[in-house]
């Protein structure tokens, strides 16, 4: 028995819905990981030891353990201490924080490599350290790390398939549901793969546009 893609159109609605969930979750997690990454970086570099420590722990947990385990911890674990999150929220938080830790590493290095004359110039016109970071240092650091952060975001999109295991009907789980109804795994997994690839292409296109805009000011 060969491939038969004629079964696909009948289940395209569920696949497209899964696609929408994947895009939504990846987008929300990407935003969380971006701004979370900046916040983690600032905490790591500019706050006193005592404030840094709890974030060290978060960093250690999210870098040193599998993402799948982190999703289980957030979705099934937190319920035990009374925090009952909807599955998609748990998925966004897990993915978002996981990649925030990686983005934070990139942003920290970039902040440290911004010329220290920039901070001085900002302080001499009267900006506080916080204002100087926000207006002068961080915008420059973020520009430097758009390409590697873009790579992290593509990894995030692919890893978003993991949230299927906590029951979010995103693209992978939707494909499995369609397979359950048709017993056609090859066709539907290929269709899902195609959609992931298409979303990836869109992300790369957005990233290139951002990079091009930034290069004008260099």
């Amino acid at each position, binding site marked *: 028995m060969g491939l038969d893609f004629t079964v696909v159109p009948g289940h395209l609605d569920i696949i497209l819905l899964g696609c929408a969930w994947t895009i939504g979750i990846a987008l929300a997690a990407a935003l969380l990981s971006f701004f979370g990454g900046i916040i983690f970086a600032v905490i790591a570099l500019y706050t006193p030891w005592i404030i840094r420590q709890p974030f060290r722990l978060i960093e250690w947990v999210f870098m040193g353990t599998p993402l799948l385990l982190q999703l289980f911890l957030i979705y099934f674990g937190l319920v035990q201490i009374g925090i009952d999150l909807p599955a998609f929220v748990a998925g966004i938080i897990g993915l978002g924080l996981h990649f925030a830790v990686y983005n934070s590493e990139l942003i920290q290095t970039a902040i440290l490599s911004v*010329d220290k*004359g*920039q901070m*001085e*110039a*900002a*302080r*001499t*016109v*009267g*900006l*506080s*350290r916080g*204002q100087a970071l926000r*207006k*002068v240092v961080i*915008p*420059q650091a973020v*520009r430097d790390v758009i390409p590697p952060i873009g790579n992290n975001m593509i990894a995030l999109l692919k890893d978003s398939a993991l949230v299927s295991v906590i029951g979010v009907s995103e693209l992978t789980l939707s494909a499995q549901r369609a397979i359950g109804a048709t017993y056609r795994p090859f066709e539907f997994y290929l269709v899902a793969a195609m959609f992931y690839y298409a979303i990836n292409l869109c992300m790369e296109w957005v990233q290139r546009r951002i990079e091009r805009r930034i290069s*004008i*000011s*260099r």
Partner: protein
Amino acid sequence: MSDQDHFVEIRYAQKSYGSLEVLKDISLNVERGQIVAIIGPSGSGKSTLLRAINDLDPLTGGEVWLDGVQVNKSLPHRQYEKHINEMRQHVGMVFQHFNLFPHMTARENVTMAPMLLKRLSKAEADKLAEEQLDKVGMLDRIDYYPSRLSGGQKQRVAIARALAMEPKLMLFDEATSALDPELVDEVNLVMKKLAEEHMTMIIVTHEMDFAASVCDRVLFMDQGVVVEEGPPSVVFKNPTKERTREFLRKHLAGAA
């Protein structure tokens, strides 16, 4: 308001890094509208002294007063930060390497601080940017990013950025040292214009001719002390100290 009679008063400034003394009990008074040049070999402490005035390099001893207010007064951390941010708004600073914000246009470089700190509206800030950039002859480059400007143009924008906060005092830290020789004049011209407007200025420089032509007073520093101080006609033409003569001889020979 205080017992300070001078516009800028530095009293017994000391700065040391561990056992290395960079400034040894330096005192200096500058009156309103005066232009003072600080010259000396590298490592003499002249930049450190300049940077102590707005607390960029905090002193380890001594006092800095500006217009009746002590700059480096002892306050709890938070209050001190607030105080120093407020003081710095009155002191413009121009750096050797310009330190323009590369992610902002010339206009944004000038308007950022006034919009953030003085709550100027976009329209008011734009007007201010046009005025200040016109003053330094950069109005035609107002929407350029620094990467597209020459060194001299960058430094002129940096001066406009400092002036936009309407400072009472301008500090120049080797403002022309990083420039190609043919670009030095355009920056010097802007500084001369400020001098004509009676801006109070303290200038760390290697340009003896420029110092001689615009300054009211010259300080020669070496190894953390002021060796000689006086009007340029005396310090440059008839220095009393052997160390000053030696420095000028070397420097003028090197420049020629």
